[in-house]
């Protein structure tokens, strides 16, 4: 059982670090990835679910898309504090505190999963069966330097970005990020 939510995080201008595992939770070099991910999941401009707030980089890009609603699930108390500051003045944001997999959530037109220390990270496909609208656009943080369909989604395609990661202790990404592009084709 992951104890991530009990670990002390340290916040820098360019990253968040898990001080117990000496591992970055998120870094600002990921911004281009976050921008493309936000563009993909927000194509409908409908109801968007963002799982994991992190540094709020993707959240800013989602807001810039002018979506109908923007639900953000976050489990770590220190990040929740940051989220509550960030949300001020943003009327379309719904904050859900806790574990995304066991929280009461609706159905969405776009979903982005980007968690850390998450026991349920492999349950995304199962989750989308109940929480993704038909034609919902889904993506997730792809830590591999490859097109790995780790969730076995049926309707997946790939985009890519050439990037220059800063030194880190959490990803295998070297020079290219492969963006998973899933379209949910299950009609509820």
């Amino acid at each position, binding site marked *: 059982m992951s104890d991530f939510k009990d670990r002390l995080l340290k916040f820098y201008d360019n990253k968040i670090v898990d001080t117990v595992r000496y591992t970055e939770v998120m870094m600002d070099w990921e911004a281009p990835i976050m921008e493309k991910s936000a563009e993909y999941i927000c194509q409908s401009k409908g109801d968007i679910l963002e799982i994991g707030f992190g540094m709020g980089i993707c959240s800013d890009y989602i807001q810039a898309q002018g979506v109908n609603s923007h639900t953000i699930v976050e489990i770590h108390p220190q990040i929740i504090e940051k989220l509550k500051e960030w949300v001020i003045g943003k009327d379309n944001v719904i904050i859900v505190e806790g574990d995304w997999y066991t929280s009461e959530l609706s159905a969405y037109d776009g979903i982005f999963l980007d968690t850390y220390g998450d026991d349920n*990270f492999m349950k995304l496909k199962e989750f989308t069966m109940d929480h993704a609208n038909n034609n919902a656009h889904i993506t997730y943080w792809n830590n*591999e330097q490859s097109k790995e369909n780790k969730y076995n989604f049926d309707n997946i395609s790939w985009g890519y970005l050439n990037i220059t990661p800063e030194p880190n202790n959490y990803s*295998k990404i070297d020079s290219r990020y492969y963006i998973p592009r899933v379209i949910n084709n299950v009609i509820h």
Partner: protein
Amino acid sequence: MSFTEPIYPANDLFVHYKLAYTGSSGGDWTSTKGDATTAGDYVNSSEDESITYPGIESIRDLFRNVDSYRCSRSYFKFNLGRQRGRIKSASFHLWMKSIGVGSSTFHRKVKIAEATSLAIHKSDYGNIFTSSTNLGTILAPHVIASESGTLHEFVFNSDGIAALQDKLGTNFYIGAASGFYDIGTFTPTAAGGAFAAFEVRYKEYSSTGSDPHLIIEYHDNAVFMGANF
């Protein structure tokens, strides 16, 4: 007997680390440990990376959307170009602090082995192996690292002394790794279980008081004398 002054490592010493993911193309613990040809990622210790990354680590945990093994080793290069004589004893001193988790002291075990020459490149990750998965000479009995952090002493065994003797006049490389998992037979358990991790201080840490160093003791009058020379 004559002892050397502490011999400090060259500046180009690095932490090397490697990632692999369970249940994906990344592999398992065995492939994470790799072999002599396995490349990892590396971190230059001159940036005081002992604070940012564990210098030695064997862990499985949940990180960013992955269930991942991670293995780190630290390498040290000593220039022994001016060293001559017949070695009586030797010791390697390394500041370490155990930050791992386990029910006993096994997770705090660190071993050192002779490493092959560093290219200062990602390819150095496997340099603790001489070929395939054959480890370099184990230089000393394992040390149990403290949980508060201090300078520890690895006292060279006879194999270690022989390996060091063989490298007098040239460079000598030491690799430090988890003595239970990496240079051991066990596999880090799943997230939330036992693992090994150590802060390590390098030459550039801030003061020489905690710098890694070698101390060599020579037999008297052995320099350039006797049948072996």
